[in-house]
């Protein structure tokens, strides 16, 4: 290989380097590859700690419920509270219809109302599916695996209605977002073979002012019922307006007793099927469950340790 001439390079702009003359200051940051792995490990550890915290607090908070309010439906209510009536018709499931008057904070939505009713009646909070669909009220239907079935006849589900000028209107919008005002009446009815639309039958108890206990000076005057009243049955003194599409009247109704100070709940009319209560587990079986969980996690710990040892050995 024969050398050929080459133009000289531009001279270096810094002086010839000697160790004690090197003027550049050294930046001791640590962005190197090794410390980046350290940051990754720290981030993963933090994530694991957060998840663990959620799990631990969950186990501590199991069983907590919110307290019921002190005011009752027939007595004076405080500022910021409203009275609403909730009708639940579970007759298709072997239950009955009932209307409950409740005092709730203003701005409660329909879902919270259901939960409050469950607390007050002691029937437990309603069961929801993972998508947010309401599966069961008062533990009906009892089968925990179904939630809103569909078969060749149509849908079987809990349909939602609200009071619209004295008659039921099918609630196709979200009960979660509907804010209740004083004097509102809500209804839920279990429909079998329905269409999932406004043609589905409404609760057998119609919405009327008479569902509210009498001592409620702030109630607006009741609108006249639109349907002709039926001949009075002997046991009840007040005519009950007929709801659309149903010939049989249920008798076990929260009575609109005039002048009575009783709370208009009919706990006895509700209980037909099984009731799922909130804390059905005794503390004894809870401890048993914790032992089972601990045993499995010890097993997992052994597996993880063994895997880690094997990885170190083979790498």
């Amino acid at each position, binding site marked *: 290989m024969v050398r050929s001439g080459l133009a000289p390079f531009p001279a270096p702009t810094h002086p010839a380097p000697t160790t004690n003359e090197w003027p550049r200051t050294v930046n001791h940051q640590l*962005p190197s590859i090794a410390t980046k792995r350290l940051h990754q490990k720290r981030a993963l550890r933090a994530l694991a700690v957060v998840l663990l915290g959620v*799990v631990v607090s969950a186990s501590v908070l199991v069983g907590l419920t919110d307290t019921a309010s002190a005011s009752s439906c027939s007595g004076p209510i405080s500022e910021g509270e409203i009275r609403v009536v909730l009708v639940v018709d579970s007759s298709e499931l072997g239950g009955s219809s009932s209307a409950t008057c409740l005092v709730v904070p203003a701005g409660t939505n329909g879902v919270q109302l259901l939960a409050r009713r469950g607390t007050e009646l002691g029937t437990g*909070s309603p*069961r929801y599916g993972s998508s947010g669909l309401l599966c069961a009220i008062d533990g009906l239907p009892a089968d925990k695996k179904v939630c809103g079935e569909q078969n060749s006849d149509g849908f079987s589900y809990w349909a939602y209605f609200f009071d619209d000028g004295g008659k039921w209107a099918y609630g196709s*919008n979200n009960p979660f977002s509907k804010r209740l005002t004083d004097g509102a009446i809500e209804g839920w009815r279990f429909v079998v073979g329905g269409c999932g639309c406004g043609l589905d039958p409404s609760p057998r108890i119609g919405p009327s002012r008479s569902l509210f206990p009498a001592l409620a000076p702030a109630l607006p005057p009741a609108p006249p019922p639109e349907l002709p009243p039926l001949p009075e049955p002997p046991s009840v003194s007040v005519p009950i307006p007929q709801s659309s599409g149903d010939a049989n009247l249920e008798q076990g109704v929260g009575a609109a007793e005039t002048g009575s100070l009783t709370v208009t709940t009919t706990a006895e009319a509700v209980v037909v099927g099984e009731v799922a209560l909130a804390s059905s587990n005794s503390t004894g079986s809870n401890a048993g469950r*914790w032992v089972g*969980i601990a045993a499995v996690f010890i*097993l997992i710990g052994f*597996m993880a340790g*063994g895997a880690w040892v094997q990885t170190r050995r083979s790498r």
Partner: protein
Amino acid sequence: MGSDAQVTMTGPRLLHPGAWWLWAVALSACALRTTNPVLLCLIIAVSGWVVVSRRADVPWSRSFASFLRLGMIVIAVRIVFQIFFGVRIPGTTLFTIPEVTLPDWAAGVSLGGPVTLESLMAAFYQGLRLAAVLACFGAATSLCSPYRMLRALPTVLYEAGVAVTIAFTFAPQAIVASRQVREARRLRGRSDRGVRAWSASAMPVLEGALDRAVALAASMDSRGYGRRGSSSVTVRRRSVGLVLLGLLAIAVGSYGLLDPSAPALFRIPALGLGAAALIGALVAGGKSTTRTRYRPDPWIGPEWMVSLAGVVAFGSFVLVGRMSDALSPSTNPLEVPVVPFVAVIGLLVAALPAWFAPHPPTLASASSPMVVAA
């Protein structure tokens, strides 16, 4: 061939990929049946244990850790979605996010509001279920060579399978290449951390991947890949037409099964027609390709046992599902999950392949000193 089977049964070899996939599919079917967090953690642990015990010393066997990391990301994303967009079922409120009221047409969606413990736990369970399915899938990809899976496919599907196999090898190579490119950034005086480093390394990595793909394609082409044999055009067109008809019929049949209002003709008969068409296409197409298989993986005792282990685990879950509802612990109200003994035993049976599956050939068993390619 009999003596061949005897020899391969005892020495180190790779298990038939179909056995590992059956086992992994059975485990993920178990995971899909339950939201019990304890059982899901056990599924993840079992899959990890089997992977670490029986993976071969090849580049694609290190992918399990990436799937675990992906699973944790899935859980985190699920929880974040629940916090912001979840359905506001009442419960024990932990904290409240300012609520945004949406107009009526978006009434099905809620934005903000009180975040309850029950909803977070439900989100965690569902995320954990997805993470368990990902772990099973990661176990299958770590244990099976993509190429051996490809060879086990019927010959008519071979060419479609090649594209999938090459896609499988793309991800680990891209990871290695992106690490090299980011290190090279440091050599040019730029930082190798942060978003800019990742985005700037995308183009060279993709270019490198394209070059490698072209080189691989040229190598395969030069070695005879894609030979047609002597089948005529009409035979090929017929098999392609049968495949399309079969896929269409299966799609229609699947829809019919899911929609109760569909006429009965669109359900089982459509599925049957689709299956028949596909089988016909496989048979007709199989005659036209001329590939042979070199020493196909045998399906003998260990393969049966591994598949059986997976099926036993799945069976135990079906049994528990019928007997109790421990597989779906309730989150509203929140309760301590029950650990069903039968399911735990089933999952421990699914961990047995870590012992009785054959050892993969390791560097120590190959009879030459290990060479370090630096």
